[in-house]
């Protein structure tokens, strides 16, 4: 569509135009509601907060918004693929490339990551008896970096400069020669900024978990979600750092004429190595916290301590460790040679062992338990068989010789959605339903929860199961059309129906949130009859928790005190609490990185230099306004 604005001729495809219209309308509605209900103060409060629960809420809020955004992309993909030789709206050719790129990138970096980090932020301190994360200010910085990174990535669509290089950004496609537009730069800087925030948050979580546990809360007594958060944070530190450097090198290739990944001397395979040294651990970064959520949920709703606690911890650590030795299974068809392929095939298969152990331990936790089929428990039960299916296809893919057949087909698409959706997404749902009272003070409606669960689970299998078969028939991924042979038409149509069913199921979730809010039935501290420390504090968790500080005497100490009709012993021997502040600096710091990247993307170097200057000024201001000054003894 062509039109003129302020004398400039603008060419916008109709989908981008629709996005503008939709966003502006929605924005107007939001602004209207905010002004009508006089909630500007609330927004400001969240912009300056450093409280872990509030930052967690922000992460979750934006994770959900992006889930709808990336889910819409998925529906476009599925509608385009609904029939053979279909021409849906604009989604053919390059547009299709764009839509799966934004879908994949957003789902991984701006949906799964923030939702998990949000849950960790809210829950982990409460589970271990910490009053906040160790560095509240840094926590806010981490969030705003994520926020501005994601916004940076998102504006590309509105400027009709969407990246089209897949979520993997493979070189040489991602180098300047083949994607000269700004799209790939949006990908690079969007991930770079938000990834930096993720690294800071991981660091913060580690220090919190290692140093801020309640008295008596030994590492070996921590709930499993805290454990998996700890191990995940270590994976983040390594994986996201490698990604940061990969993006850094790609940036030099694109903007400053370096030649790491292309040209006569550069090596596109090097990008693949770096990307997958990040990328494979990343899938464990997504899965392990979900494992922790399931362990806590299953144990609570089976009224039993989790089976084989030490083994559960060890297997997570082992998965995390092995996760760094398998990256080249994404590159079996590159031609690294039989030795390399065999090595990576075997390490990949090995991971099935600790994972299998965990599955059995979840089953044994339920065995002879008193099971309550609440919504969080339903999501956990749905997870087990679905995830096992994804695991089985994973082992199939690890057979490097066979992978030559599977590679880059819809079989792979089926596989990774089975593992990611079954673990991460179902885990996030389980966690959100489970901890919703701790976050907001309300319990979500169980009936709507069941509708959400069943429609999602059925829709999910309906979408992705057929892709195994279409994939084995040779239907390639990342291709916008197919012809009507070998029964592909029916199977693809089933997939599309399933995808829309999942879309519907998310409407139940939203309706549920709305209904719960309207009814406004507050709950007490412990609506689920929980076992771990977070259920001892008020719902929603107040800003100042654990006063007096409980003393932990074993695993599930809260539960045993409760069953014995006693209160947990308390102490006033408490280590120094992290210093909370209210500050707009984290927000501003994030925004300077946004403008810095914008300047680099469009070669407006004055903007980059100005932003960098403001950034350093803000850092100096931060140092001069250190909240510790007021807490430390004055100099004589």
């Amino acid at each position, binding site marked *: 569509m062509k039109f003129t604005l302020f004398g400039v001729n603008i060419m916008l495809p109709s989908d981008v135009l629709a996005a503008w219209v939709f966003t502006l309308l929605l924005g107007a509605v939001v602004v209207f509601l905010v002004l009508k209900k006089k909630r500007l103060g609330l927004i400001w409060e969240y912009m300056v907060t450093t409280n872990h629960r509030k930052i967690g809420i922000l992460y979750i809020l934006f994770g959900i918004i992006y889930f709808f955004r990336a889910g819409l992309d998925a529906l476009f993909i599925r509608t385009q693929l609904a029939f053979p030789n279909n021409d849906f709206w604009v989604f053919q050719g390059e547009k299709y490339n764009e839509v799966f790129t934004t879908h994949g990138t957003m789902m991984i970096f701006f949906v799964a990551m923030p939702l998990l980090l949000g849950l960790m932020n809210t829950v982990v301190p409460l589970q271990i008896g910490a009053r906040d994360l160790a560095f509240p200010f840094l926590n806010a910085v981490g969030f705003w970096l994520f926020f501005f990174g994601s916004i940076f990535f998102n504006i590309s669509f509105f400027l009709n400069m969407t990246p089209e290089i897949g979520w993997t950004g493979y070189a040489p496609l991602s180098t300047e020669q083949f994607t000269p537009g700004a799209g790939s730069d949006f990908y690079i800087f969007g991930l770079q900024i938000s990834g930096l925030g993720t690294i800071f948050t991981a660091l913060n979580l580690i220090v919190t978990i290692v140093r801020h546990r309640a008295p008596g809360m030994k590492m070996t007594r921590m709930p499993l979600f805290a454990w998996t958060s700890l191990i995940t944070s270590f994976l983040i530190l390594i994986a996201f750092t490698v990604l940061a450097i990969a993006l850094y090198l790609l940036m*030099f290739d694109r903007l400053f004429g370096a030649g790491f990944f292309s040209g006569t001397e550069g090596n596109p395979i090097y990008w693949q190595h770096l990307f997958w040294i990040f990328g494979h651990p990343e899938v464990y970064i997504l899965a392990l916290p979900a494992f922790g959520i399931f362990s806590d949920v299953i144990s609570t709703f089976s009224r039993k301590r989790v089976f084989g606690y030490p083994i559960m911890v060890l297997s997570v650590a082992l998965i995390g460790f092995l996760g760094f030795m398998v990256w080249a299974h994404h590159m079996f068809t590159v031609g690294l040679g039989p030795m390399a392929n065999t090595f990576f095939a075997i390490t990949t298969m090995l991971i099935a062992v600790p994972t299998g152990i965990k599955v059995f331990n979840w089953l044994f936790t339920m065995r002879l338990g008193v099971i309550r089929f609440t919504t969080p428990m339903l999501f956990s039960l749905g997870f087990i068989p679905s995830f096992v299916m994804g695991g089985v296809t994973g082992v199939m893919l690890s057979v490097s010789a066979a992978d030559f057949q599977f590679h880059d087909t819809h079989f792979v698409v089926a596989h990774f959605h089975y593992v990611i959706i079954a673990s991460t997404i179902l885990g996030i749902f389980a966690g959100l339903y489970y901890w919703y009272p701790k976050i907001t003070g309300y319990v979500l409606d169980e009936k709507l929860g069941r509708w959400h669960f069943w429609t999602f689970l059925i829709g999910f299998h309906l979408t992705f199961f057929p892709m195994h078969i279409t994939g084995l028939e040779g239907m390639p991924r990342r291709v916008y059309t197919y012809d009507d042979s070998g029964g592909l038409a029916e199977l693809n149509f089933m997939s599309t129906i399933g995808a829309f069913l999942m879309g519907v199921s998310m409407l139940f979730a939203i309706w549920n949130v709305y209904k719960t809010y309207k009814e406004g039935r507050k709950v007490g501290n412990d609506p689920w009859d929980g076992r771990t420390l977070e259920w001892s504090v008020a719902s929603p968790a107040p800003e100042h928790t654990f006063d007096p500080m409980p003393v932990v005497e074993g695993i599930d100490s809260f539960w045993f005190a409760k069953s014995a009709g006693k209160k947990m012993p308390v102490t006033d021997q408490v280590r120094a609490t992290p210093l909370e502040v209210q500050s707009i600096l984290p927000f501003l710091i994030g925004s300077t990185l946004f403008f810095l990247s914008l300047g680099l993307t469009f070669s407006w170097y004055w903007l980059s230099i100005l932003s960098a200057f403001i950034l350093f000024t803000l850092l100096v201001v931060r140092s001069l306004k250190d909240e510790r000054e007021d807490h430390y003894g004055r100099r004589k």
Partner: protein
Amino acid sequence: MNRAEQALFNDKKMGFFIYLGVEAIMFAVLFATYLIFTPASNGPQPSEIFEAKTVILSSFFLLSSSGTLWLGERALKSEKQNIFLTGLGITMLFAIIFLGFEVYEFASFVREGHGMGVNVFMSSYYVLVGLHAAHVAFGIGWMAVLFVQYFRQIPLTLFTEKLSIFSYYWHFVDVVWVFIIGIVYLPYLL
């Protein structure tokens, strides 16, 4: 330092060490990149363009700045304010001189036509050594802030804390430089 201050400082110390771990991984990947791409099959070669003189001089200043910082820190502990100020001042001066050498080296490469895009060796050289130089520049700014904090008379324990965190950073930057000497320069200067 009382117990609360000690606890908060230990938090910060641990956090900062983890951060340095992250930095170490970053540099490790860049070293790997350098090793993979050097020497390049055509264009300038490291043995042709590196100059022992610049490397030795700049190393002298950067490495000894670690020592002067250490002396300064020790002086602060024994409340010898002037020695402390001199120590930190010399550290900053040496850092600036080092940075001057770096700029000079980069500029002369570029003048000879060995820019970023000439070949993969030059690219991997610039992204690695350039990132290190950026760290030195950041450290100089950090020292300037430390001076400000000192004269603002913030609580002494807090100042000591800030100084220690800075010194971890500075020693780390020095260690990276030692690796740069050993991996980037030395094999092609001998």
